């Protein structure tokens, strides 16, 4: 019994209800979230996502987007050539951005980094960039043809 008491004393918070240390700043709207943080010379990123659940990417032309004032770079699958582009929580079967085809609506197709958020949004939402995702594929056999194993 004495040993248990000793543990409770030394552990402090264990066995007691302790108020959150960050409760006050969150309750009063003073907490800083990631979206609130600004640092000098930071860039703003936005992702262009596929409007189609299944489509071939026939071409992506980033030249106009890259020429826009404030745009630092526009990244697509072409920029992944020299690195391993796949990731995933259980199975690494998702490319960072779609390669050759998209497999779900909302899959990232391109990413833009710009000096201000408005420019990044303008590029990512421009119709010229969207048109580059091409037309929906007629058949939905694309996932099986990659040969990558999937979870049952």
């Amino acid at each position, binding site marked *: 019994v004495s040993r248990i008491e000793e543990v409770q004393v030394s552990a402090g918070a264990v066995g007691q209800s302790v*108020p959150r240390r960050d*409760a006050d700043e*969150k*309750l009063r709207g003073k907490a800083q*979230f990631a979206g609130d943080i600004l640092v000098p010379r930071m860039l703003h990123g936005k992702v262009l996502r596929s409007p189609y659940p299944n489509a071939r990417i026939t071409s992506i032309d980033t030249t106009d987007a890259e020429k826009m004032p404030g745009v630092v770079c526009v990244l697509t699958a072409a920029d992944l050539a020299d690195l391993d582009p796949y990731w995933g929580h259980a199975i690494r079967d998702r490319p960072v951005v779609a390669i050759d085809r998209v497999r779900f609506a909302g899959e990232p197709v391109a990413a833009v980094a710009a000096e201000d958020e408005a420019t990044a949004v303008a590029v990512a939402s421009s119709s010229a960039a969207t048109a580059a995702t091409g037309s929906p594929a007629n058949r939905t056999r694309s996932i099986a043809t990659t040969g990558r194993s999937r979870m049952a």
Partner: protein
Amino acid sequence: VPTVEGLAERPEFERLADAFTRHAALQCGFCTPGMLLTVAALLETGELTSVEEVKRGLAGNLCRCTGYRGILEAVCELAEVTA
């Protein structure tokens, strides 16, 4: 437009903050301003007369981390209804 920053300057806010803190009615804090503004408005109109009314009143505010239990308990205490 009333915001949580504005609400926090009003004297009646301390009661809300105290209840939310004691009942652990927040975690990440993302939904907290919306919860507080909703609760402040509903307490003012006096329509939180039962647990069901509290649940209905909070129904449009989504929280993905506390599981609602703490929020419900805090608001029931503020509205003086049995949780």
